[in-house]
């Protein structure tokens, strides 16, 4: 596995884009200088539900330099080649979301795109927008999960349910489930609420489109170039070759640039076609917060049937996600939510029901963790309550119940390998130290109360079930005549370090120094489709493809060179091979070099049944434990986070510093979700759409993090690596809520937990569940 001349894996190679980023030389979309560029802005709805009756343009304004586009005067159905367009929807899982609401069409959320404006300067585009007034008629809106389920106002089908799932383990009927629950000595029941969460990447959504010789070129900030490519083919009505999508340096994504960039690309493309000029759209922060996808708000009802000895007799979970106005990715987010809802604990009888419902909120979508953080919050609150009523120490309780090799998950998957439970629990217990002193004063002299919370959780790495097989991702490694090697994949680096990891994996497999490896920006006319950059799959799945392609290439070059009697390092031998191929006509060369492309092959023995939701939901899981110490100022109810210890099993850390960065970044997003981050909807509109009041943690809001990398290798991941991107987001919020209950003696079952929620909970008879009383 370790070649003497490579040896890149396991070392903290500084990220290959590091110098460009610290010097300001890295060019993000908004940094590009483009001649004749026009700036696009969006005219948006102001009602949550209603009809778009038309757009009035102020005749007093000079429109001579302005391009205005509504859905109405466009050549839908004619196709790009005929100067027209394809279909007015954003192709994702469904066709329900239009690129622009047509005049006479239905508005389904506030800040929905109704019209587009482009102008030579941004200031002029904004001035024009101030003189464009959409006429709208409002209708009653659906703004709560229960209203969606009542379906008096229908937004999707007859029942407003985008998708539902049912998982049954160890029983066939609801009666059998109830019998198992009745056989428990004690049933703990709770309802848990979590709010929307904004990704708050620091680079706002940014995209550009250029119609160039019949080819629509899209460039911008995105996670998934081939998602955008697919959406553009449908929108424009064209062949694959008529759209080229290129990812530019991307300033953070976290899921927020998974599906939304297709909308932005559509708008840029419509304006580029209408204006005949390149069009750039960069969202202001307020528009980005108001209009783009967020983490699904959730309500999870959880029943935990406990035997007298503390083991679990039955688990019953009912998961409901607010999907917002359009289906987008909600079914997939819900899937991951329900698949994690029973937690990493032994139980023979499990029922999980899940529904994603339609409301008139802007669509909710992908955000790191992808449904799992919501259900993890519920089950780890339940486990903490169980430990408390049983009088068992928190880690002992989890240690006793946690899944080990040979155990089965809720879907009946038998865990065979790479189960990090013991190593994670051992590591975090060793690091735990004594709990904080319960009572004291802080530096302002105010009385404080302190507490400690725990959480243990798992996260499936890669796509669910047979998703990777269906996708059949591909990656290419090329030996170039100049002595470099290129990795070609559509997987993007949005800051998480993918191109550095690919560099290390390729260098290791090729046995060359990492300086000889390059990873060009993904462009759909240059790179194979290795799939989207999501689902904690990039290192494990695509990294595995890169590893295998590089090994195949190395063997091919070495076999040729051995036969030809060429000595030297791999670059020298590859250059000789390329020269020989050119002499023979060069027909086998790919981009002037020798290339090997490999396609995904599933590990042996994977079986998944989509109809019954049984089998191997994920090829493997990451495992994690989190310990949080909190301090509450009893005067202001402000929460200070004193310690956060996080042990995460990643299989193998290809680059330990990058892995730490992934764990710590996810941890702080989870801590923020717990006690700071609140998206406030008022009449369907985000009421706090600015960074001034939609806050995220700063340097001063979090403690020094105690990060422990645990390595239980996964034999089918490159060098043993599995997923790391999402699992750090799943559990820390539950650990914080558990710590607050430990400190204050009242439960907190609703996220976020803000000072006003603590004040309410501590008020006599104030309801323990935070705002609205979420506790059962």
């Amino acid at each position, binding site marked *: 596995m370790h070649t003497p001349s490579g040896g890149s894996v396991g070392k*903290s190679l500084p990220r290959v884009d590091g110098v460009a980023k*610290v*010097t*300001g030389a890295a060019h993000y979309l908004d940094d590009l200088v483009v001649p004749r560029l026009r700036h696009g802005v969006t005219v948006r709805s102001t009602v949550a539900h209603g009809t778009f009756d038309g757009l009035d343009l102020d005749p007093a304004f000079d429109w001579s330099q302005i391009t205005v586009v509504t859905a109405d005067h466009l050549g839908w159905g004619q196709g790009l080649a005929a100067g027209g367009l394809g279909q007015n929807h954003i192709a994702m899982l469904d066709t329900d979301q239009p690129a622009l609401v047509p005049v006479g069409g239905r508005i389904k959320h506030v800040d929905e795109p109704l019209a587009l404006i482009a102008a030579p300067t941004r200031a002029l585009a904004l001035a024009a927008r101030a003189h464009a007034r959409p006429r709208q008629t409002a209708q009653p809106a659906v703004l709560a999960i229960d209203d969606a389920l009542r379906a008096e106002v229908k937004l999707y089908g007859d029942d407003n349910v985008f998708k539902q799932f049912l998982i049954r383990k160890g029983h066939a009927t609801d009666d059998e489930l109830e019998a198992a629950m009745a056989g428990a000595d004690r049933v703990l029941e709770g309802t848990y609420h979590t709010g929307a969460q904004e990704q708050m990447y*620091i680079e706002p959504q940014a995209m550009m489109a250029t119609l160039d010789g019949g080819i629509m070129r899209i460039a911008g900030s995105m996670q998934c170039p081939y998602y955008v490519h697919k959406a553009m083919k449908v929108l424009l009505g064209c062949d694959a070759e008529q759209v080229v999508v290129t990812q530019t340096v991307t*300033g953070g994504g976290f899921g927020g640039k998974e599906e939304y960039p297709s909308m932005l690309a559509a708008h840029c493309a419509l304006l580029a076609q209408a204006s005949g000029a390149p069009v750039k759209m960069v969202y202001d922060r307020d528009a980005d917060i108001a209009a783009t996808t967020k983490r699904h708000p959730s309500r999870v009802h959880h029943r935990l049937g406990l035997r007298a000895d503390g083991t679990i007799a039955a688990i019953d979970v009912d998961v409901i996600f607010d999907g917002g106005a359009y289906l987008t990715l909600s079914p997939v987010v819900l899937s991951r939510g329900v698949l994690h809802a029973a937690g990493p604990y032994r139980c023979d009888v499990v029922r999980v029901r899940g529904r994603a419902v339609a409301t008139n909120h802007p669509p909710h979508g992908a955000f790191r963790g992808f449904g799992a953080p919501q259900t993890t919050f519920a089950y780890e609150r339940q486990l903490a309550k169980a430990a408390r009523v049983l009088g068992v120490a928190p880690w002992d309780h989890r240690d006793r119940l946690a899944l080990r090799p040979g155990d089965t998950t809720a879907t009946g998957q038998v865990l065979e390998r790479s189960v990090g439970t013991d190593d994670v629990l051992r590591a975090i217990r060793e690091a735990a130290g004594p709990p904080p002193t319960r009572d004291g004063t802080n530096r302002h002299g105010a009385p404080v109360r302190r507490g400690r919370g725990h959480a243990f959780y798992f996260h499936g790495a890669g796509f669910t079930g047979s998703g990777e097989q269906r996708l059949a991702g591909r990656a290419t490694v090329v030996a170039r005549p100049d002595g470099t090697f290129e990795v070609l994949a559509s997987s993007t680096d949005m800051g998480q370090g993918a191109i550095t990891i690919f560099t290390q994996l390729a260098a290791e497999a090729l046995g060359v120094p990492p300086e000889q490896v390059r990873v060009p920006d993904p462009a759909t006319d240059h790179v194979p489709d290795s799939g989207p950059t999501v689902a904690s799959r990039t290192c494990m799945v695509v990294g595995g493809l890169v590893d295998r392609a590089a090994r195949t290439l190395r063997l091919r070059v070495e076999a040729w060179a051995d036969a030809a009697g060429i000595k030297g390092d791999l670059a020298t031998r590859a250059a000789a091979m390329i020269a020989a191929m050119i002499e023979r006509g060069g027909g086998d060369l790919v981009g002037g070099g020798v290339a090997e492309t490999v396609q995904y092959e599933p590990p042996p023995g994977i079986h998944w049944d989509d109809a019954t939701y049984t089998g191997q939901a994920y090829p493997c899981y990451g495992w994690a434990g989190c310990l949080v110490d909190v301090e509450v100022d009893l005067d202001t109810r402000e929460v200070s986070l004193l310690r956060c210890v996080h042990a995460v099993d990643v299989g193998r850390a290809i680059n*330990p510093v990058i892995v730490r960065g992934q764990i710590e970044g996810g941890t702080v997003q989870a801590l923020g979700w717990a006690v700071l981050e609140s998206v406030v909807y008022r009449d369907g509109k985000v009421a706090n759409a600015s960074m001034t009041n939609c806050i995220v943690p*700063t340097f001063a809001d979090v403690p020094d993090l105690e990060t422990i*990398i645990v390595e239980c290798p996964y034999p089918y991941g490159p060098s043993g690596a599995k997923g790391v991107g999402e699992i750090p987001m799943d559990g820390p919020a539950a650990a914080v809520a558990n710590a607050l209950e430990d400190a204050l003696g009242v439960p907190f079952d609703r996220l976020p937990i803000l000072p006003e929620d603590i004040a309410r909970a501590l008020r006599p008879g104030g309801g323990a569940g935070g705002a609205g009383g979420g506790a059962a």
Partner: protein
Amino acid sequence: MSLLVTFGVNGQIASVEVSPWKRLLDVLREDLHLTGTKEGCGEGECGACTVLLDGVPVNSCLVAAGQCDGRAVTTVEGLARGSAAEPLLHAVQRELVARGGAQCGICTPGIAVCAAHLCESGALVGASDPRAKVRELLAGNICRCTGYQLVVDAVIAAALPDGESAEDGAGDGGRGDGGAR
């Protein structure tokens, strides 16, 4: 109305004829093509547009061009010495790369500028808790990727190169609990 504004930028004199109300951020990016300074929020919350104005960190989205006449601005492009092809990085930039303090990089120019000021002002020398001091002084720069830990490590290493804190988190640190406190 346009006004001729003359000010120092990274040691050179720049003159631009712009509205005195134009944001310094836009003057830098649009008129001087110094795109290392980034816009994250446009309201002084995120710190991605941080530059030094007469040696003091400011949010360039909240500074008007007219306020800059006769003054000196330092942007991220002014931190390194050497050439663009072979930059001699400022200690803060070097440590941010070495210790994983930059991920997506969009907040990094602002953090680098602010942290360079922190190093050069000697604010950490003799501080009883240098890590807490770094967290306090960088609290105006939001990073959504790193969780801040490795950025703090990098700034401490740059500002107090002889301190024992500089050993944390470098190289293969981070395996097990090495480099974590």
